[in-house]
């Protein structure tokens, strides 16, 4: 290789990459308003971000997957715990932690409200379905549209079935996908599974669910219709 070629590799390589990167940066700025719902970026959300930084939360928790890995990721914390849950944990972490501790941070009430607003806004950022482990906590409101509002559909969400089962691309990975469960199992079998999971499959790891007779019927009817 000649000196001249080497220099060309340097100038061209740098320039191509730089131009591409800057062009995409400009385009990203144009799209980011929609992707992050920047219209909902209220003063309270900004105040909450300042609280997040003031207490250095990010050096224990990741957010958008960035930061430190000592505590759970906060991107979708609002999905996991909701406003009430977050407001309970933040001021009294010692009541919610076991062998790994979070400091008691003496936040003022206003700061807690701001922080929760910030986490709610953050949970709405379009992160291409990241993180995988929190997709099962996608807000019920978003799912109700897909599942309908029959009593069985609501029970499916309220009883935490999504924690293990997937339906229409959301939910946990531990149990089978139930999107088309009605094609595999009939009403009677589903009702038997719900009463005692091992009565149908001896290997089942699903816990027996606490359902009334009526609830069991409604949930089974809903699942049997998922075809």
């Amino acid at each position, binding site marked *: *290789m000649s*000196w001249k070629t*080497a*220099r060309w*590799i*340097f*100038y061209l*390589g*740098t320039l191509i*990459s*730089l131009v591409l*990167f800057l062009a*995409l*940066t400009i385009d*990203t700025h144009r*799209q*980011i308003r929609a*992707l*992050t719902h920047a219209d909902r*970026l209220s003063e309270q959300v*900004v105040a909450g971000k300042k609280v997040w*930084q*003031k*207490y*250095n*939360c*990010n*050096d*224990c928790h990741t957010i*958008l*997957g*960035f*930061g*430190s*890995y*000592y*505590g759970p*990721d906060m991107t979708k914390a609002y999905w996991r715990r909701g406003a009430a849950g977050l407001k309970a944990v933040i001021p009294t972490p*010692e009541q919610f932690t*076991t*062998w*790994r*501790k*979070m*400091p*008691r941070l003496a936040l003022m009430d206003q700061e807690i409200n701001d922080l929760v607003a910030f986490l709610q806004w*953050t949970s709405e*950022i*379009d*992160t*291409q379905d*990241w*993180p*995988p*482990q929190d997709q*099962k906590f996608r807000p019920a409101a978003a799912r109700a549209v897909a599942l309908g509002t029959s009593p069985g559909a609501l029970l499916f969400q309220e009883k935490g079935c999504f*924690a293990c089962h997937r339906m229409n691309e959301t939910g*946990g*990975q*531990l149990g089978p996908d139930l999107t088309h469960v009605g094609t595999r199992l009939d009403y009677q079998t589903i009702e038997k599974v719900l009463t005692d999971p091992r009565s149908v499959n001896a290997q089942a790891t699903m816990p027996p669910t606490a359902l009334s007779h009526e609830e069991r019927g409604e949930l089974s009817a809903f699942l049997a219709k998922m075809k």
Partner: protein
Amino acid sequence: MVLAYPSQRVAYPYFVVALLLFVLQVIVGIWLALSYAVTMPQGLVDILPFSTTRAFHTNLLVLWLLLGFMGSTYFMVPEESERDIFSPALAYLQLALLVATGVAALVGFVFGWTKGKPLLEIPFPLDYLVVVGALIFLFNVGMTMLRGKRWTVVQGSLFGGLVFLALMYLFNLPFYANLTIDWYYWWWVIHLWVEGAWELIAAALTAWILIKITNVPRELVEKWLYVELGLFLFTGIAGTGHHYYWLGAPKYWLWVGGIFSALEPLPILLMILDAWHYIRNRRDGFKGRLVFTLAVGMSILHFIGAGFWGFLHTLPQINYYTHGSQVTVAHGHIAFFGAYVLLNVMFFYYAIPKLKGLTEFDERRGTLAFWCMSIAMVLMTLAFSVAGVLQTYIERVMGLGYMTAQAQMRFWFAILVALGLILLAGVVLSVVDLLTLRPARAAKEMG
């Protein structure tokens, strides 16, 4: 007289401070591993939370590596420019300013004075003092080069990297209201440092050392330096996209980030081949083996850490599960160690004997320290990786809770505490050795 230019002496205090901070960084690191392995009492966590000690660990790393680069620059530039440093007094002032800022920042962290952004916690107005320190440095080095007798590609790469480094830090100064934009530009600092500016500095310092110790023709080294820099910047700049997969940016970053960052190992591979070629074809002149050992060790671990361990989780299909897990930690540790820690250690072992007027020195302690540190770090990387795979599988694939995964990872952090102690032994040995180098003959007489 071993020193070519008397003003090269300003490098020494930079090296001493850097080495002491290195020891402190590793001690804090062991504390962090311990915090993962055992239950810290609530009362202690309230006073000294993990977040504070982690800020210590990362800021100490950045501070000592940068002080090492700066000292190395002050050592190298006079020989390249063929004149003394423009102002040694400014160099000492700059060191005093940066160390004072660093100490103020570290003490401040304990009292909750922080910007609250990982790795860039240094709050206002201390961050502006960092900028002032950087400007003094660039001015001093720039003036030296400007008034120098010659201009070389090695110098150009070094100065380019330093200006690039300082420029990118500016993106850390504003407050960003939108979290996604905040992280978008956070990576302009962090990624474009370690996979851009710092690589330019590292490539320049390495090329210079290789010219010095192998006596291969400068034209050859500088030609390949051009190719390496071109590949580093080609893959590194657009490769920033591999941090933009899941932060709320458009989907095309999955393609751009995936493709460009997958090519990032190439320039590092070229560096290994280069170093290997120069060392095999060296012409006699430089005495001692340790600097060669460090040069080869550095390029290999640079490739394994930054190249291979980075490649493992850079593709979006994999990164979806590993992003923000201990897999990242594994990569971060071995990459920083291979690319930048060993670079500094190599430079110190080249420069400090000269600063002390030694032509040859007893290399036994230094060699032992290199192997001790490197083996400990490789094993640490494996332990972090096991923890990372457990976390990825249990938490993200199986969908079990965060703490369920952490419980399974605990054992590996206990292992990491032990490995950290071995690393510390190696680090302390190399620091003590560097600060008390003895002539080779005296060592022989003492047995």
